[in-house]
């Protein structure tokens, strides 16, 4: 494999990992917290009870693991790829969250909400295609 092909391959691979594991982490956190029930933290005892239930939930830890995988992939890809190249990929994450919520959590995503998600993706893409550095390096 030529060096440029290898660079492209590892960039696409890591961006794919970001787009899968970031949304998956959020969806798993959502699933775990739904199982725990509405957070009530009016007294210290309630808050501590909630914290212990959060920290002993396997689904929450899977979610945290997914988010850590996302973050490591994000930091690694930023070590060679431009921020302005990587950042628009985060737009796809909003679409992926809606898809995963629909198919894994059976959440009802209304047509208006799908349109909203697409407009957000478009907005993030537009933000992404602006110069990544507008201040002079110190």
């Amino acid at each position, binding site marked *: 494999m030529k060096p440029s092909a290898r660079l492209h391959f590892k960039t696409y691979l890591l961006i794919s990992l970001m787009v899968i594991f970031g*949304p998956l982490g*959020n*969806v798993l*956190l*959502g699933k775990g*917290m*739904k199982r*725990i*029930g*509405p*957070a009530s*933290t009016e007294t210290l005892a309630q808050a501590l009870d909630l914290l212990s239930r*959060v920290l002993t939930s396997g689904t*929450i830890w899977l979610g945290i693991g997914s988010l850590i995988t996302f973050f490591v992939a994000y930091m690694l890809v930023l*070590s060679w790829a431009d921020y302005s190249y990587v950042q628009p990929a985060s737009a796809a994450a*909003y679409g992926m*969250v*809606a898809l*995963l*919520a*629909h198919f894994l*959590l059976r*959440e*009802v*995503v*209304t*047509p*208006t*909400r*799908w*349109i*909203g*998600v*697409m*407009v*957000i*993706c*478009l*907005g*993030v*893409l*537009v*933000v*992404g*295609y*602006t*110069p990544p550095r*507008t*201040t002079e*390096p*110190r």
Partner: protein
Amino acid sequence: MREIFLYLLIIGAGTGGELCVARAMKVVGEVKDFRPSALLRLVPRVLRVPWIWVGLTLMGTAFFSLLAVLSMENVSLVVPVTALSYAAGALGGKFFLREQVTPRRWAGVLLVCVGVALVVVGRR
């Protein structure tokens, strides 16, 4: 009402945390050596910058607020609403980090806000 407060914490503390981390990293200076040993040597330098501690505290607050709101609302609502952090980020970048936010970037931020409004309105 409580949910709105939690969203404000996710967006405000999350973006505030990222801005503080960005500011801390600008104090540290551009990272040019990505070898693991060089990155390890970077850690104590980063931790000596007070902004990083403010940033990490704020990001932790945002994470637990996210967990709280996820216990009440659907992921397909919560995650798109947190995209408002692009608006908070643009404002913070302009006023806190003195970045120049281009009209095109403002247009993107506006689109994100319109999208979030549609997601919120698009409840059943």
